[in-house]
């Protein structure tokens, strides 16, 4: 249960962790894109109460969702518009990223 209980090297965990909120349209937008690019990800559903989202604050420095942690590239990102842009440029057609773009 401790925040240290999730080893980053866990054998078959997907490299992308997606912090999301149930029924959040901004999160769904990210989910749609992750699926469209066929990316394996692990969803973590967090607390509706903004003030209770300590895990997101710890991971990303904000209490907003969505947040994506991508171990392929070492990137942690908040804000759906930023995430969408990141996913498109890293995994989309004409991806510009050179590291971790192909998995």
């Amino acid at each position, binding site marked *: 249960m401790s925040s240290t209980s999730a080893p980053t090297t866990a054998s078959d965990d997907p490299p992308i962790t997606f912090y999301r909120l149930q029924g959040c349209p901004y999160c769904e937008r990210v989910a749609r894109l992750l699926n469209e690019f066929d990316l394996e990800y692990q969803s*973590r559903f967090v607390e509706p109460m903004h003030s209770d989202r300590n895990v997101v604050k710890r991971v990303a420095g904000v209490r907003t969702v969505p947040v994506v942690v991508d171990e392929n590239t070492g990137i942690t990102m908040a804000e759906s518009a930023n995430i969408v842009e990141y996913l498109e440029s890293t995994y989309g057609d004409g991806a510009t990223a050179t590291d971790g773009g192909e998995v």
Partner: protein
Amino acid sequence: MPDFEVVDLGPADNPEAGDEAPDFTRPLVTDEYWENRSLSELVAEHGRTIVVFTPMTGSFLAKYVWDELAERGWDEKAHVVGVTASTPYGVKRFLEDNEYPFTVFADPAADVARDYGIDHDLDGMAGITEPRPAVFAVGEDLTVEDAWVGTDWPDFPDYDDLEERFGLE
């Protein structure tokens, strides 16, 4: 003579020592978030695991069991995980309100309880099935090392006996 009834639930159809523990994937709930995990993943990460089934988290049965295990510090002696027929939100609130040092699988439809042969229909309450109180020690190869399943309603484990059997003293 007490004037209350302890109901006999009859024998369960659970896996016994030496049987393979049915693997399952359900949202594993912490006090901060929930995500899909499987029993086999947890066993691979933590080794031998004590799996504790309780009725729904609103019940005194669930609270009494987890209070007792927290007080006895089972979390310091073994990897302990719960399974209950509550929603992830319900489980999360339960863990938060009580500050339990455990994680619990949310199995609202009680399919896992059914797979373990310990489902209980709560006297026919429409649409509700939940686990009987039950405790399984699951070894690293996912083999059941030992099991206790409640046969009365209500029923609680003999914690001292389980600690001795599971080597948790």
